[in-house]
């Protein structure tokens, strides 16, 4: 089949990295991502289903790979060549529509789950992600879309384990369903911020960045941490409008987030650091600058939830040390501890949230696989071009 595929090619990664600084389209054209004919992947075993891609989103982590920015951390957690694409709504051979929970967890790999009923992302030992499955048919890979054995969403079809599939209602449009995975990420980050604001009077949660993930975090906060006053720093006018529409209490230009948080917290601005600040900050950008900003607007002993994938950053952590700030990574989803003490699967919450907020409003444009250069360029410049989520549309390929 014809699919987009990334191969391990140091030269292409290097060229993409250089080109991306100038023009995302060039990075997509000369980088490691190529549309080619590939062999159909073998079925990895019992419990695996063929999923025919309907829509597959382009995520920031996909872009970092395409543009050659991904950290070497993942070297042992991916297997080349792979077909990217982990934000997927598709259909099974029998026509049942599903969204993909992309983590290739214990069950998919034939290992014992960390606890009964665990979600793919649960557990505190990631060994299974870096080794082949027990039957030897699933190579390392943290998720579908980073594993050479399963295929990925940027292809007409791929394999997904039963544990990864969430069947969706007929009345849920594809355009909404394709946002479930990023919403799950945002909800997970929101729920990681929740313990810091639990029991606090007038809690403040700041969200830095209002691209797909920042907006997803806002949605998660408004839905599951409703007591929090959510202040968002957004860069572009359409992001400000969307964050406001989703229910953020205050949306300001990102450069003014510090003063907005200061006003809400009623604290001082000492130099450029708040004396107190937000109880928790969700960094939905993941750069040196955004982490630095998040640390300086979060109150002592507060929590910074790092949702944007950072790769290599340069930080002065004196403030983190002095303020005893907690820096918390927020990679993905699984089983959530809810503020009321119950547990829930993030994806169930995300489906609910996608319906509640009519998440299709975040899908800005779709492209055919053949238009991947334009699609990548659009996704890489989404904010500047007034867009949020860009996706591939493979409906009609089946």
């Amino acid at each position, binding site marked *: 089949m014809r699919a987009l595929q990334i191969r391990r090619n140091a030269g292409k990664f290097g060229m993409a990295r250089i080109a991306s600084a100038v023009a995302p389209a060039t990075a997509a054209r000369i980088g490691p991502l190529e549309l080619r004919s590939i062999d159909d992947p073998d079925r990895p075993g019992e419990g695996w289903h063929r999923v025919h891609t309907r829509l597959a989103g382009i995520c920031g982590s996909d872009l970092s790979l395409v543009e050659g920015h991904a950290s070497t951390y993942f070297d042992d957690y991916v297997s080349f060549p792979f077909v990217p694409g982990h934000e997927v709504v598709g259909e099974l051979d029998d026509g049942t529509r599903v969204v993909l929970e992309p983590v290739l967890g214990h069950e998919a790999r034939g290992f014992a789950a960390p606890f009964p009923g665990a979600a793919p992302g649960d557990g505190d030992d990631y060994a299974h992600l870096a080794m082949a499955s027990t039957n030897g048919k699933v190579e390392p890979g943290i998720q579908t879309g980073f594993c050479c054995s399963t295929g990925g969403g940027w292809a007409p079809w791929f394999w997904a384990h039963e544990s990864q599939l969430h069947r969706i209602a007929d009345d849920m449009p594809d355009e909404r369903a394709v946002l479930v995975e990023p919403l799950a990420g945002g909800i997970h980050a929101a729920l990681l911020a929740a313990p810091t604001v639990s029991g606090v009077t007038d809690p403040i949660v700041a969200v830095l960045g209002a691209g797909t993930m920042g907006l997803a975090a806002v949605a998660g906060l408004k839905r599951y941490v409703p007591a929090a006053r959510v202040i968002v720093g957004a860069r572009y006018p359409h992001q400000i409008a969307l964050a406001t529409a989703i229910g953020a209490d205050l949306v300001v230009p990102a450069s003014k987030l510090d003063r*907005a948080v200061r*006003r809400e917290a009623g604290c*001082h601005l000492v130099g450029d650091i708040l*004396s107190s600040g937000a109880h928790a900050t969700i960094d939905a950008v993941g750069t040196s600058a955004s982490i630095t900003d998040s640390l300086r607007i979060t109150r002592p002993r507060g929590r910074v939830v790092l949702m944007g994938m950072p790769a290599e950053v340069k930080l002065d952590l004196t403030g983190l040390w002095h303020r005893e700030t907690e820096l918390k990574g927020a990679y993905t989803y699984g089983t959530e501890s809810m503020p009321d003490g119950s547990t829930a699967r993030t994806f169930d919450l995300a489906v609910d949230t996608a319906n509640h907020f009519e998440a299709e409003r975040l899908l800005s444009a779709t492209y055919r696989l053949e238009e991947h250069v334009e699609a990548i360029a659009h996704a890489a410049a989404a904010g500047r071009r007034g867009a949020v989520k860009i996706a591939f549309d493979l409906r009609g390929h089946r």
Partner: protein
Amino acid sequence: MPRPGFVLEVDRSTPPILFWRGEGFSLEKLPADRSRVIYPAEPLAGLDDVDGHIRNALLNPVDMEPLPALLKPDMKLTICFDDASLSLPKMRRPDTRQRIIEAVLDLAAAAGVDDIHLIAALGLHRRMHEYELRHVLGDRIFDAFHPRGMLYQHDAEDPDNLTVIGETDHGEVLEINKRVAESDLVVYANINQVAMDGGWKSITTGVASYRCLSFHHNPVTLQNTRSLMDRHKSDLHKSVWRLGKVLQDHGPKIFTVETTINTDAFPSPFDFLSKREWEWSAKDRALYLGTQKSLNRTPNRLARKIFHSIESPYATTSVQAGFTPSVHELTLEHVYAQHLVPVEGQTDILTMGIPFISPYNPEGIMNPILVMCMGLGYLFNMYRNKPLVREGGVVIMTHPTYREFNPVHHPSYIDFFDEVLADTTDPVVMSEKWEKKYAEDEWYRHLYRTGNAYHGVHPFYAWYWGAHGQQWAGKVIIVGGDPSTVRRLGFTPASTMDDALEIASDVVGRSPTISHLHVPGVLVADVT
């Protein structure tokens, strides 16, 4: 003999008229046969011997005993003085306040008074920098008093150093600086640049608390202050005078020294600013062109520095001392003698050039809120009887209105612009919804008390200052301002004066009458 102010009817032969545009100028051709320019009087002659007049005023005061008779060896003497908001631009050394205070100190020394405090009456303004205090007071006074903690600045947020003197029959509470309240004698050293200043306002605002100021620094009072330059038609001044009566009846003895200055504000090479355009010589025109071109190429920051470094060659035109209300009546006579220009009738449009400075940005940036304050607060209020523009008419200002703020001087202004003006430009709404939060913000309070920041509530007061003009005008247009910033103020941006007049035609028709308030210098239109 200086020529009085007058009204020039614009005809086809009238040259383009000078407009301030912040740290720059423009020449604008006003429509012939329906425009008029209100020119200020030329600067009045100054007193020959200012020190002699000061000494004479102290020895021969109005409705009070001579100052030496009030000075006793064991007394508490406090000398308050106007802060850096006066004069604008700052006057050449020696500053009149220095002259007054040196004369008072000489008499106090002769009387054996040694408990003397000097207090900058800054109200909710920013604390003065040391170099500003030195400029105002001179090095001798500064070095003698400041190191010993006897020269300091009023702190309206120091609960331990505020005292309630009493309450007016309107329920207004007079709460002032404790040292002032407990003094046996308070001498106030004033510079009266406009009719709004002086009188009871000096002490009842200059050393008052936020609580005390809020009784008259509010939208309703300012909307009924018509105008700031006419205290008998100003609700603000009526409130202040009521508080002054409480001070007179229950407070310390006040010995007021008021002085007036002429309008000679700009030394060479900027003296062409004060001339009438048709009298510009070839040298003036060359200076204008050269200055304007240079300023156009100069970064804002540098241009600002150049203008704020100006030291004006003002001359003192009168000195009077004694009982506050009596002194102030004499002062007003002198102020009006310099400023009043008879003007007949109102027009559909009022135009004004907004300069680089206002009372609230000495040494600082004329931020957008201050542009509003200067235009609709100060310049619009330069009238007696009725405004130069008819109700529902259009006010056109020229100013770059850049979105820049001095973070040291105006920290709460930044938030006011971002938060309050994004919500409302209605002074009544903002006072009810936002003022308390800003007034009680601990960070602003800290910066006001220990740094050089205006009080947190000050941007509200600056906005309220324009409340009457805002309510009166049917539309406000700013020519040459940053469009999004101008819109945030609730005004309409225009690129050129012609565009502004076209935009104004929606409100005032195709052939509106126009008054231009010529700045500089300073004038009060006596509109009949």
